[in-house]
């Protein structure tokens, strides 16, 4: 049976949690993002812990720290995707051009 557990965190905890998860050998399943009903960005960092997905959710940040120095491209690609799709930036993320959206598309309007 698959399980799901959500915890709300603030943006200062993102890197610490990612480092601890990496140290424990946990896989970063995916980073998901969306805009909630109040118009705030929500970014959910989801790790696999046995049969459970542990989701750490950050609400309201427009500038978040990248975890690509911890999870490498497994984190960099979803971060790049969400920079293109919602109005959020990842501090320290190295980007070479667009991943999905055309270069002519305006920032944060995907």
């Amino acid at each position, binding site marked *: 049976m698959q399980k*799901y557990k959500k915890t709300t965190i603030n943006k200062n905890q993102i890197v610490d949690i990612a480092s601890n998860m990496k140290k424990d050998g946990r896989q970063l399943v*995916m980073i998901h993002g969306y805009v909630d009903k109040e118009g705030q960005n929500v970014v959910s960092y989801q790790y696999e812990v046995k049969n459970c997905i542990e989701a750490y959710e950050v609400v309201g940040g427009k500038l978040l720290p990248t975890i690509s120095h911890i999870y490498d491209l497994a984190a960099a690609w*979803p971060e790049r995707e969400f920079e293109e799709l919602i109005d959020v930036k990842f501090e320290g993320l190295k980007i070479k051009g667009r991943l999905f959206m055309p270069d002519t598309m305006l920032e944060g309007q995907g």
Partner: protein
Amino acid sequence: MSYTIPIGPNHPSLEEPIHAKLYTEGEIIKDAEVFFGYNHRGIEKIAQERNFIQTLVLVERVCGICSHSYPFTYAMAVENISNMEIPKRGQYIRVIIAELERLHSHYLWFGIACHIIGFDSMFMHIWNVREKVMDILEEISGNRVNYAMITIGGARRDIDDEKRKKILKMIEDLSNEHNRIKDIFLTDKTIAMRTKKVGVLSKDDALRLGAVGPHARASGINTDVRKNAPYSSYDDFEFDVPVLSNGDVLARVVVRVLEFQESMKIIKQAVENLPLGAINLGVKMPKVPFGEFTARHEVPRGQLSHYLISDGGQTNYRLSIHVPTFKNAPTIPFMLRGNTIADSGLIIASIDPCFSCTDR
């Protein structure tokens, strides 16, 4: 002499649009980059305007090869938020179709791999054998793709005794054919020369880059959602997860060859022990409460995840689909480095990429 060689997005040898840039020195690839999005359809956004039954039809169109996997995973997410307990028979039917899909997907890939290395007679033979699986799927569901076998709360169509006998007969025939194909893959010198020590991905790189599925298992990572986080009665079946450590293209071929046998084992157990009872809960239009869930499924290419948020209304508030190719594609540049341009097509194909899934 240094060259930058662009491949795609539209290129005669590519079935789907992807753009790769190879930075080469002479014949040797020094670095590479890949770009997507040439066929991005915005399915996640469209899903926000669809109700839960309509979304099953929509997500089934994400991929033309593993089309059963998408409504399967989506339905699991809806059912978990709604606390639905699926009847055993419905769970088994879902598993049978999922594993039949794995069989034909792996054979499709074996065929393409043989075609790329210039072994066209083998390509035609494999695709001929693959038709046995496609015929059974067509007989069960009426379609060769987009089987529409899933509904919220179970399976949409039953598998009767006559079809069960046909599936078991097909598995028996396929098993004999597969043994011949397996022998050729494991002993043929041409295949070994083109694939051994080509496009190597080390275990460290695979872990660091987050590779999933058979691609990760060929690099020594023991990962499989069916074992790590069992769902839909997968824990009822006895099967092994083949793991190899070489990390080259040959290892990816062999992992899939072995996995094929395990899938046949699962189908045989599921068909023989198909429980009696209802196939679904009879839900016409589910009322999904406020909540969220991430459902995962081991599709032929690796781990598929659907993150669904419901606000208690009639549509999906947010559906985020993440596919195995999105996790495996970052490994392509690392595998290409140090190999020749002539092997680049085979190395890119060795992750069994699906850009239709990635450009969901």
